[in-house]
């Protein structure tokens, strides 16, 4: 029972990160109908920058801030320089271009930093504190929950309470009408990508300390887990992404805890297949007609 409780908390903590990462995927999907397959590697790139900055300044938080800023810039650059060129092409092209970015970034990071695992410590202790005799929550888990909660409240406020958020929703929902009404759709798309990459970078900073360390492929499994979470939620629904993220985190934590961590990739595969076969549009999306 203790183990079950521990795995549940661990799964929720993981799930919070998947939720954030899935949210970033949903942000871009809603705006452009593109699944950003490069999101994992962009997050890794910002984490490497954080590693360098933290190493140079000796402060974890300087690195943290650098990673978030780099996420904003990278996201905007990727949209402006690359994705805008394939936005009108068949959807396959955008996927292929994003995968090209994956190879490019992995190659560049490998050249700069090598392909060995670099140590990437957490800012808080990861040993679980005991609550009523049961080892339950670590300080780092609390940090993760707090950060993700803050992020979600921030995003919700941005999209429902500000003019920028309204413009972004309008540009995603009806680009032509918004353009007529004076919304600079191109600029809001760039902002959306920047924001999504920022969220991705944040998720990367939160999840990499819980893994083996920093590596060009460190986010591969996180990406597929978050993609699964987003699909569970319907790819279109921010609330769905959050619920999907927590669900995927729990499932992976139980599978990893009871069957060994080597089986988690297969668990992701099984989960995704089941969801896609049972309910391809996800649990939370509205019914949408397929355009013929």
């Amino acid at each position: 029972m203790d183990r079950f409780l521990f795995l549940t908390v661990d799964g929720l903590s993981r799930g919070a990160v998947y939720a954030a990462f899935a949210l970033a995927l949903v942000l871009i999907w809603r705006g452009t109908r593109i699944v950003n397959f490069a999101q994992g590697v962009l997050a890794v790139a910002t984490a490497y920058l954080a590693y360098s900055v933290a190493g140079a300044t000796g402060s974890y938080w300087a690195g943290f801030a650098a990673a978030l800023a780099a996420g904003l810039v990278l996201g905007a650059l990727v949209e402006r320089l690359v994705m805008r060129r394939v936005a009108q092409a068949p959807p396959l092209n955008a996927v292929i271009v994003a995968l090209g970015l994956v190879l490019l970034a992995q190659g560049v990071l490998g050249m700069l930093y090598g392909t060995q695992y670099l140590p990437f410590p957490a800012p808080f202790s990861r040993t679980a504190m005991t609550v009523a005799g049961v080892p339950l929550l670590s300080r780092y888990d609390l940090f993760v929950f707090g950060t993700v909660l803050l992020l979600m409240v921030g995003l919700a406020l941005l999209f429902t309470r500000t003019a920028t958020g309204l413009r972004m929703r309008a540009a995603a929902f009806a680009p032509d009408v918004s353009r007529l009404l004076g919304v600079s759709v191109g600029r809001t798309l760039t902002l959306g990508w920047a924001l999504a990459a920022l969220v991705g970078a944040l998720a990367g900073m939160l999840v990499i300390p819980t893994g083996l360390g920093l590596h060009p492929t460190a986010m591969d499994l996180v990406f597929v887990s978050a993609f699964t979470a987003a699909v569970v939620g319907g790819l279109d629904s921010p609330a769905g992404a959050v619920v999907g993220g927590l669900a995927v985190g729990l499932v992976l934590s139980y599978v990893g805890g009871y069957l060994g961590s080597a089986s988690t990739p297969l668990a992701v595969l099984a989960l995704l297949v089941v969801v896609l076969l049972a309910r391809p549009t996800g649990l939370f999306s509205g019914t949408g007609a397929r355009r013929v």
Partner: protein
Amino acid sequence: MRRYAGALVAAVALLAATAVLDPFRDYQLATAAAYLSATAGLTVLTGLSGQLSLGHGALMAIAAYTVALTQNAFGAHGVGTQWTLLASLAAGTAAASVAGAVVGVAAARLRGPYLAGLTLVVAVAVPSVGTLAGGLLHGDQGLSVYLPPAPGWLGADAPYERWQAIVALAAALLVMLLLGNLAASGFGRSMRAVRDDEVAAALAGIPVARVRVLAFVVSAACAGLGGGVFAILAQSVSPGAFSLTLSLNLLLAIVVGGLGSLAGAVWGSLLLVLLPWLTDSLARTVSLPPGAATRLAGNLPLAVFGLLLVIVMSAAPGGVQGLLNRAGRWVRGRRPGRHARRVETSTPDAEPDAPLASRT
């Protein structure tokens, strides 16, 4: 008939080439041929039936492990003839086809990014089976593959690489011939119809789901043959050799060569072999500290591949073969006689539709 004659000429020319080339070149040729089996299968799937698969590296892994296991079983029972290779490759191809059928059935209902995501998860998940079934597959270390010595008719002093090249080239030629026939057949037309407009294809009586699944199975079989040949080339198999990067490299090859073009798959496969070799030689001529040199050699090809993929997809989506075809058309178009006819057909027939389009 022309296709068979071409294949025969290519077979003779390549057989002669393997005898002339030194062992290192033979091995490079064999590697390109092994890539070609997989990329040709992938280009038919992605280019003709419109399904993007990032899981072909995993399908190759399944076949490679099957070849390793069957070869080692043959070795353990003391069966050492060349026919074992044929049997193992057939077993590997069959295993990959079955896996491809499973993925294909799941994929038949999926579109665009969903399909790419599912196959991406396949590519990430399947190598972990090697770790999971550590007793049988020896985890990250992998298996070594028992191989009988090269046959006597090659000559006693023939390097083993020449035999490897012959096996790999035979497999690749077989794949190219079969896929060439398939693309030109009614099934090829069905695949293109499904790719271009599913609803129209279904209305025309094409069984859309069956075509998509069959395309996946055929493509998986080709990838499996390529993966099996890889096991014979490397004489060992390990999960690290079949990572997501391999799948992305295959994708790069077919995109740069030209999606859906079998000739493009040849260009792409050559690129996959030649570019790492070029950057490796380049890194060796520049004097660098040893750590930086290995970092560069291992990762520069990756970065160049990624850059190529981005540039080709956004600037010339037709790839090398698309550019060649355009150049060919341009040259033919300059010939007198044809020119007049082309002008005639290109009279703007969009004019009558224009008022309608502006009304909607």
